């Protein structure tokens, strides 16, 4: 879960990492007012949950309150990688002598925390690592290790901080490491860490990503307004609706509605449809043990999408039960009706009961099942994928 720059900086401040005296503007009037108060020139920084703001024109320096108002207006109309700018951080412009880099992240290969520091900040650290590895300082820690003062000092010296800055520099490094552990971070970066012309160290930017799965043990984040959030840029109306229903859903640009079970086959099924010459209209994941109501809602998302010409359903009952799956599909058929052809395979836990439910519902109301083809373990999933592609092709009048 990525934090906005200003939120990351708020966390920095809690660990005594120096940050510029900035404030958040939600409209042009506020931008003008803050610029006047904190002293000109100021930097207007668009707050978006994506990288590459600078290149996209999301960061501007202005030297008058009027310019702050006008430029803020331009920024509020901007979209950066699909993220509309809704907040602008207004900060005094720093006089930069040097730019450094400090980051803490997780080394998934070795199951360690790793502190990365560099004398070259303000640029893409991965590029520096690839081109001039000698400028990168790395040190690994176990998750339950603390960083001692001498270690922070060694890192600070490693990136060329001299005796005057070594104390503040090492305090910033150990502060960032503490922040990383305290808030269950996945990434905590200061890039650049600026040495100002008057010899001070200050965190000019923040990039902090926290573990969504650990947010529950940090109630103080909610008090700061930091809650679980969507990080994928602008959502389509259907993705918005799915999010409200708590269903992981993505619109894609094909015409076959995907109604799989777990995320694993959700990803693989997408490939299968491609292999057989079709294109999925979406990605969707039911989650473990979905209720019939949830499954019915998932089908509504597909049936109401005009791009969807046929629906591909797959259920391998594990923690999800086939009887619940059948109940969900039947609930959907009864309440909503199926306007498109659907082919579906169901096997696994409680499949006999699922089949019985389908047979019974079909006997009561055969009309509901007119467009619904149903298969069990005897038909390979590849055949079902092929059939879905065929059905979509027929619905489009052949192509």
């Amino acid at each position: 879960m990525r934090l906005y720059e200003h939120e990351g900086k708020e966390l920095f401040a809690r660990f005594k990492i120096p940050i510029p005296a900035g404030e958040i503007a939600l409209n042009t009037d506020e931008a003008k007012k803050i610029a006047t108060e904190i002293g000109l020139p100021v930097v207007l920084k668009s707050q978006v949950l994506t990288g590459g703001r600078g290149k996209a024109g999301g960061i501007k320096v202005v030297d008058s309150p009027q310019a702050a108002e006008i430029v803020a207006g331009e920024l509020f109309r901007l979209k950066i990688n699909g993220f509309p700018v809704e907040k602008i951080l207004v900060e005094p412009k720093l006089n930069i002598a040097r730019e450094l880099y400090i980051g803490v992240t997780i080394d998934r290969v070795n199951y360690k925390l790793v502190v990365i520091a560099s004398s070259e900040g303000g640029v893409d650290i991965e590029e520096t690592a690839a081109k001039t590895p000698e400028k990168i300082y790395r040190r690994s820690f176990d998750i339950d290790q603390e960083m001692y003062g001498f270690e922070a000092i060694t890192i600070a010296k490693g990136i060329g901080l001299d005796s005057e800055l070594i104390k503040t520099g090492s305090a910033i490094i150990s502060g960032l490491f503490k922040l990383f552990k305290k808030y269950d971070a996945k990434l905590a970066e200061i890039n650049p860490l600026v040495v100002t012309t008057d010899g001070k160290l200050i965190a000019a930017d923040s990039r902090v990503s926290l573990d969504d799965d650990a947010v529950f043990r940090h109630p103080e984040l909610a008090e700061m307004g930091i809650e679980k959030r969507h990080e994928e840029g602008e959502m389509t109306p259907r993705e918005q609706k799915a999010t409200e229903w708590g269903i992981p859903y993505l619109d894609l640009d094909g015409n076959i509605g995907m109604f799989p079970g777990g995320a694993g086959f959700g990803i693989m099924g997408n490939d299968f449809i491609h292999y057989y010459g079709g294109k999925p209209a979406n990605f969707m994941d039911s989650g473990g043990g979905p209720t019939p109501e949830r499954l019915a809602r998932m089908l509504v998302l597909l049936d109401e999408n005009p791009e969807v010409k046929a629906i591909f359903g797959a259920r391998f009952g594990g923690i999800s039960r086939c009887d619940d799956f059948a109940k969900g599909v039947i609930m959907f058929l009864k309440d909503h009706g199926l306007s498109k052809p659907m082919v579906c395979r169901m096997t696994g836990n409680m499949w006999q009961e699922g089949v019985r439910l389908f047979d019974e519902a079909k006997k009561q109301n055969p009309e509901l099942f007119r467009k619904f083809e149903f298969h069990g373990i005897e038909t390979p999933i590849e055949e079902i994928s092929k059939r879905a592609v065929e059905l979509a092709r027929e619905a489009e009048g052949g192509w």
Partner: protein
Amino acid sequence: MAILVDKHSKVMVQGITGGAGSFHTRRMIEYGTVIVGGTSPGKGGQIVEGKPVFDTVAECVKETGADTSVIFLPAPFVKEAAIEAIRAGLKFVVVIPEHIPIHDMLLVRKEAVAHGCTVLGGNTAGIITPGEANLGIMPDIAFTPGRVGTVSRSGSITYYIADTLTRTGYGETTCVGLGGDPILGSTFDEILWMFEQDEKTRAVVMTGEIGGVYEERACDTITKMETPVIAMIGGIFAPPGKRMGHAGAIVEGKMGTAKEKLEALAEAGAHPARTFLDIPEILKKLKV
């Protein structure tokens, strides 16, 4: 033979009194898994599905000789439960719940390595040695005893692979679910090496997916293996930059794309499969 679990494994369930715990305990017993008991702090002395409940893992081990644990507890409790199991001397711990905090899993992994314990998960459907033991939430119907091992990040993919191997007469030795969480207790390379040392496993099917680093990490092991490895990677056609369900499954730049993973695995000597139906074809050619 089998890896990690067989009919001699003495299995306990942490969280045995909970809804999922008791439901799946019954299913595991019905399959023939030797379940010896379980834990639920404060509920020691109760009986669930005919098995004794203890307050701590150490008591359960002492009374029942348990050597393996399956955890059915909410994610926030997994760190303590897993470390308790590891420190009580269990050699194998299966973490079923998903969304275990990453920092917790790093700590669990450290404890496991220090104590020589293997941890699977989080977010795994479990592990099954067909005809002998079923630990977790896998549906029995897909599996039959045989000669191919499987290891996968995803439950549903494990089922489809086994379904294919069962239908085509190969059957399975052991099917291992690594789990879908970003930090896993065990990795492909470790499980592949166990299969390499298992005489009955004549080939291994591994399936991974976009994102993360675990598939590439297996390459070195595959080059050292005599047992053939068939590799499948999900997400060849996944749109870049979009997150598809599993936490690990996000493609950032070039790193961890499905295509690159598959190419790296093929270069290491694995046999790439596109669909499940390719698997029996490859096995036939390899004369497995």
